[in-house]
Each structure stands twice: as C-alpha cells, then as structure tokens.
C-alpha cells in the first residue's frame, strides 16, 4: 500500500475528490434542469420556481469544480489530458455546447422578460441542455473506464481512420449506460435536495416521488452498465467485481440507496439528502477503485502519466493553501443560501 502515498496518486485523488464535489453540487444543478423539463401537474410553475431559486445563487460556484478537474488534469497528467482531448473530441464538444447553453439560457431566463413565452423558450433550452450534458459526461467517463482512450496515439491516428479513432472509442452500450446512470443520479440528487428546500408538503411530495423514480432508474442503469461492462469493458468489470474493494463498495451503494429510499418514505428529508450524496459518491468511487493504478487503462498508469515532482509538489501546496481560502468561502455561500433558517424567511 506504500504506493498509495506518492505525489501522483495523491493528486489523482484530489482530481476525483473535485469530480465528486462537482457531481454532488453541479450535478444537482443539472438535475434541477431535468426536473424543469419534466415539470408537470398543477404545481409545475411552482416546481420550476423552486428549482430556479435553488440553483440561482450557487450554480456558477458549483460549476468551477469542473474547471478545477480540467486544470489539475492537464497540469498533473498532461499526456493523458492530450490523449483524452484527441480521442473524445466529439463528445467533449457536445458537452461544451451543453454547458454553454445550460448556463447561458438559465441566466437569460432570469434576466429576460418575465412574459410566459419568453420564459418558456429559455426554460426549454436550459432543460434540454441539462438533459444532454450529464449523459455525454458519463459517456466520456465510460470511454476512459473501458480502456478505449490510448496514451500513445499521435502516429496511430492517421492510419486508423476517422470512425475508429474518434467515434467507436466512446460509442458503446456501456458508455451510454454510464451516461444514463449519471443523468439519473444527478436527477436523484436534485429531487432529494429539493425535498429539503421545498416549503410545503405538496412540493415536497412532488420531489419525493421524483426522487424515488430517479433512484430506480439510476440503480437499473448502473446494473445494466455492470452487465454491459462484461462485454465492452472487461477490465472495469473485473475491477469492480473481483478487487478487495468489491464487497465494501457494493455494500456501500446498497446501504446508502436503501437509507435514501427509507428516509424519503419517512419524510426525513435531511437524512435522505445525506443518503443520496453517499450513494452517488459510492458509485463514482467505484470507477477509480476498479481501474487503479491505471489512469488510461490498459496501458497508462497514474505514475507513468504524471508530470515531474517539481510540478506536482507546488500544485499540491497551492491546493492546500487554496483550500484554506476556498472552504470557508463555500461554507459561507451555503450558509447564506441553503441553511434552513435562511430559506425559512417569510416574504
């Protein structure tokens, strides 16, 4: 286990922790867009307002976690970043369009005319972008996990042909199962968080029901991904089912999922929020644990891909110092907008 505490592994760990924060925070913002899309019934306007109010003050800060992931990846593992950028050019491009349209449309809706048709038009773009982006994010992760992004590629690309180089690596059943899992997890997180933020039982019940549905979809999609992995990503399948971590990981997913479902049923929404976050976290960590010590399986390890220690050490120090600045600021943001006393303020 001594190779766990090397600089490259620690920084890879920081990247996954940042991705984890992105999933739990920005993921829920995307999930909010999903529920904006599926807003139905007589309370649909109030559902949409609750979502917009929940996302408004925090989505930009939540989005920065992704920037941190990208920056740390190209700083600490530049070759792997280059390989990912080349092979996954097309899905990453789609994801970027989704990110741009989601953020822009949400902001435009807030500041454009409050007339219904204008609001609906921006809302539609915001919602569709929120649906597409998480799927594509999952597809990209799926391609890496399946070992379809190769390190040494400069020469191989010209000869292999366009489809083999730029399309087939990510176009797999496994990848799309991961994409749907990602989307459903984001939707589940959003629905559970919104049960906490809703101020009346009707809205709470709306999102409680949605949380149950999303959890069901997420677990089925994750199971499907596991089955498809035997065909499309045998290495990840072995890693998930055979390593030392297999049993604790599956237990963690099962228990947190059960905890979430039961808490929702009993209307203990704060407990459900913890459960949903734990469930998403356990599923996410399955990925790096299953492919450890590889960064781009099957042939580029974390150690191989790492930048020199003269880069990694100052970056790690910067992260430590930056965290001292960042974490209190984030705590302040969430205390102002997300603590129950702040939300309970009557108008």
């Amino acid at each position: 286990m001594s190779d766990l505490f090397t600089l490259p592994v620690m920084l890879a760990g920081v990247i996954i922790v940042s991705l984890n924060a992105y999933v739990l925070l920005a993921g829920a913002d995307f999930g909010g867009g999903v529920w904006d899309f599926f807003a139905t019934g007589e309370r649909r306007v109030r559902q949409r307002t609750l979502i917009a109010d929940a996302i408004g003050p925090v989505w930009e800060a939540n989005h920065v976690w992704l920037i941190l992931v990208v920056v740390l990846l190209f700083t600490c593992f530049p070759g792997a970043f280059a390989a990912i950028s080349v092979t996954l050019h097309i899905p990453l491009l789609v994801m970027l369009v989704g990110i741009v349209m989601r953020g822009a449309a949400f902001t435009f809706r807030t500041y454009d005319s409050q007339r219904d048709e204008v609001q609906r038009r921006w809302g539609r773009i915001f919602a569709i972008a929120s649906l597409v982006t998480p799927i594509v994010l999952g597809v990209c992760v799926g391609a890496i996990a399946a070992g379809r992004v190769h390190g040494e590629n400069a020469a191989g690309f010209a000869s292999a042909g366009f489809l083999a180089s730029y399309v087939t690596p990510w176009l797999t059943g496994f990848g799309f199962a991961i994409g749907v899992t990602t989307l459903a997890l984001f939707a589940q997180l959003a629905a559970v968080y919104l049960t906490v933020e809703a101020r009346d039982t009707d809205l709470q019940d709306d999102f409680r029901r949605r949380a149950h549905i999303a959890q069901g979809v997420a677990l089925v999609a994750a199971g499907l991904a596991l089955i498809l992995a035997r065909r499309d990503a045998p290495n990840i399948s072995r890693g998930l089912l055979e390593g030392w971590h297999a049993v604790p990981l599956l237990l963690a997913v099962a228990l947190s999922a059960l905890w979430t479902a039961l808490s929702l049923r009993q209307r203990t929404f704060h407990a459900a929020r913890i459960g949903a976050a734990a469930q998403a976290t356990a599923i996410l960590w399955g990925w790096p644990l299953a492919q450890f010590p590889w960064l781009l399986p099957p042939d580029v390890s974390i150690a191989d891909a790492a930048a020199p220690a003269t880069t990694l050490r100052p970056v790690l120090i910067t992260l430590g110092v930056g965290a001292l600045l960042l974490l209190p600021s984030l705590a302040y943001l969430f205390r102002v907008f997300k603590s129950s006393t702040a939300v309970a303020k009557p108008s």
Partner: protein
Amino acid sequence: MSDLLAARSQMAMSLAFHIIFAVIGIAMPVLMVIAEWRWRRRGDAIYLELAKRWAKGTAILFAVGAVSGTVLSFELGLLWPRFMEYAGAIIGMPFSLEGFAFFTEAIFLGVYLYGWDRISPRAHLLAGVMVAVSGAASGIFVVTANAWMNSPTGFDLVDGRMVNIDPIRAMLNPGSFPQALHMTLAAYAATGLAVAGIHAFLLLRRPNHPFHRRALGIALMVGAPAAILMPVSGDISARYVARWQPAKLAAMESLFETTRGAPLVIGGIPDVASRTTRWSIEIPKALSLLAFHDANAEVKGLDQFAETDWPPVTIVHIAFQLMVGLGTLMAFVSLWAFWIRWRRRDLSKERALLRALVVVAPLGMVAIEAGWVVTEVGRQPWIVYGIVRTADAVTPMPGLVYPFALFTLLYLFLAGVVGWLLYRQIVHSPSPTELRVGTQPLRPPDSWLTTDEPITRGDRGGTSGQ
C-alpha cells in the same frame, strides 16, 4: 480551409469572444461596488438603483464569461493537445491559482447578487469587493500563462524536451508583469469608458438626468485614470517585446532591415514582397528611443529571421497601429475629462466632451482585440516562442472546420442575446417613478426590492418559493 487554419480560427474566435466578457467581468464589479458604497454613505437612492443595474449587467456577462472560459480550457486540449502535453506541467500553476480566484469570484458574486436582503450591509459590500479583487486576480493569472508562451522560462531544453521544470519561475517569466499590467489597465479603461460613453449618449438626449450623471461620474472615475496610464504600461510592454520577441516587434513596426537609430513607422500598409511600407509616416530614431530608451540603439529587423519564422507582417502591423491609435485617443479624451473636473466644471454639461465620450465608447474593446491580435498573431509561427511550432501542436482530428462553424454560430447567437438583454436591462433611462426622486419620499432600502419595476429572480434574491 486547412485544419490548422480552422483550429487557429476557432481559438481566435473563442478568445476574441471571451475577452470582452472577461474584461467587463474584471471592471464592472468595481463600478458596482463604488455605486453601492456611495449609496450606503450618502443615502442617495439613485446610487442603489445604479448598483443594482450594474449588478444585473455583471450577472449576465459573468455567466457568459464563465461558460465561454470553460470552453477555452477544454479547447486548449481539443485543438492543441501536443501543446498541452508539452507545456501542461509548466503552465498549470497559474491556471490552478486562477481556478481558486475564479472560485472566489463565483462564490461572492452569488452572495452579492442574491444576498441583498440576507446579509448585513457591510458583508454585502465586502462580497462585492471580493468579486472585484478576485476578478482582477483571475485575469492576471491567466495572462501570466500567456506571457510564458511569449517568453518561456523555468525549464532546461534537453533533446527537445523540457526538463528541470520550475513552474514558479515559469509563472514569473519576463512577460508576466508587463502583460498583466497592460491587460488589467486595459480592462478598466475599456469598460469604464464604454459605460461612460453609454451614459454620455443618454445625457445628450436627456440633459441633467440624475441617474446618468452619477453613472457617468463613477464610470469615468474607473476608466479615465486607467486610460491615461495605458501609454506608460504600453512603453513597458514595448521594451519587453523588443528584448524578448524581436521578430514580433519588427512585424509590429514593419521593420524589414536591422537598423541603428530606427524610425517609428506610423500607419501605412506593409508590402512584404518589396520589403517596404507604403503610405506611412516615419519619425526618425523614435523606435530606437521608445524600444531601448536610446535614440541610436540597434533594432533587429525581420532580416535577422528566416522568412518561414516571420509572423504575418501586415496583420500584426495594422493591428498594432490600431491599438496604439485608439489607446492614444482614449487617453486624450480622458485627460480632457480630467481637465474639466480640475476646473470644477460639471462633466454632464460639457456637450463636446460627452460627444467625444460617445465616440470612444466602443474603441477600448476594439483596441483590446487588436492588442491580442498583436500578441497572438505576432508570436506565429510559434505557439511557444522559439520552441514549439503551432503547426506541430494541433490535434490530428480532421474536419476542424465544423467545430469552428458550430462555435461561431453559437457565439454569434449569444452575443446577440446579451446585447439585447443589456439594452433591455441596463441602458434604458429609469423613469422618475422608478427613481423616486422629487415627488415621493424615499422608501427604505428593503422595499426597493418590491417596487413596480419588472421583478426578476435576481431582484427577489431567491426568497425561496413564494
């Protein structure tokens, strides 16, 4: 269109788009904070209205700036993977620091926009200050990464690979200070004068309107000093370019032959084939004087470099002339405004000055675009000056013209919408009822949030549910 040209065009278009939002995101919070501070100090409700409108503008522009910045951070890899593979480890440091600055900016902007009625006045003002400071810091960090591409340091080159990497020294490369200073001042000058020009235009139509008078005062307070300092920082930048990127300087000045006591070439169109510049004005020895502070210093011409290593001379020369010309004009108009204030006259009654401010309003942004053309096109054919060629850095993926077309359309659409929203939200003059001046007593600040103005989510401050 070749893939290399498509990649360069996409990068240029993405940067040209993002930089507008980035500079406004740096400077606008300063205007907003000054307006809020004056409202808190003087109790003049017009300043509150001003702070809120500028905050809304900042919110729209910051959001587009944040997402277009995200696009850029991915495009570094999508378009230039070999560059990132080569240089990621060495320029990652400023990007990591920028990540934290951007985080701080996003957090406190959320607090500022949605926290009007949730936190104490002092905390609210402080949140605005945090946005302004971290916005400037983000810009500075990113510019140091660009400066490294112009004057790469902090490594040893062994067999074409960078070894003994020192990211701190790379970040503190010789270009960092001149470029960061020039860009930060440019952000304040361009944004300040753009806002001043808008309100000058509205004052010409509605003289004495109290809202626009106050807006003009604050905008000039930020824009004018920066515009006046720009020539000084330009001089620092020019001397840096002369020393570290002689080929770029030669292209900027279309100096084809190495010359002692080189003249300053103003205007004109370079003709690369005949190695001359037509229709230009030459000031003897002025280039040597400006570049090295010595009238007889030798300035390297393009003849010192193989022609395959020349940047596109015509583009760089014209962009440089444009930047300097517009910057000079902005500095003169700013000095004029200072002189009026010095004489203790009312800026809003000087119609000639107001007209001049309207004319220069868009020029700062044009000058910034021209300046980046000088920096980026002037570095060609290198992506890392003297070390990595742009052509060697581009992605092997074919068909790059399609992503270029896609993002061009996307950004044109966004630009149109942002323009319309700003016009709708910020520009139109508030009516007397909106400002509550004269006829009605001023209401306490909280009830400002529930006036008959069109209510937006931003205004309601996310009062959660109903």
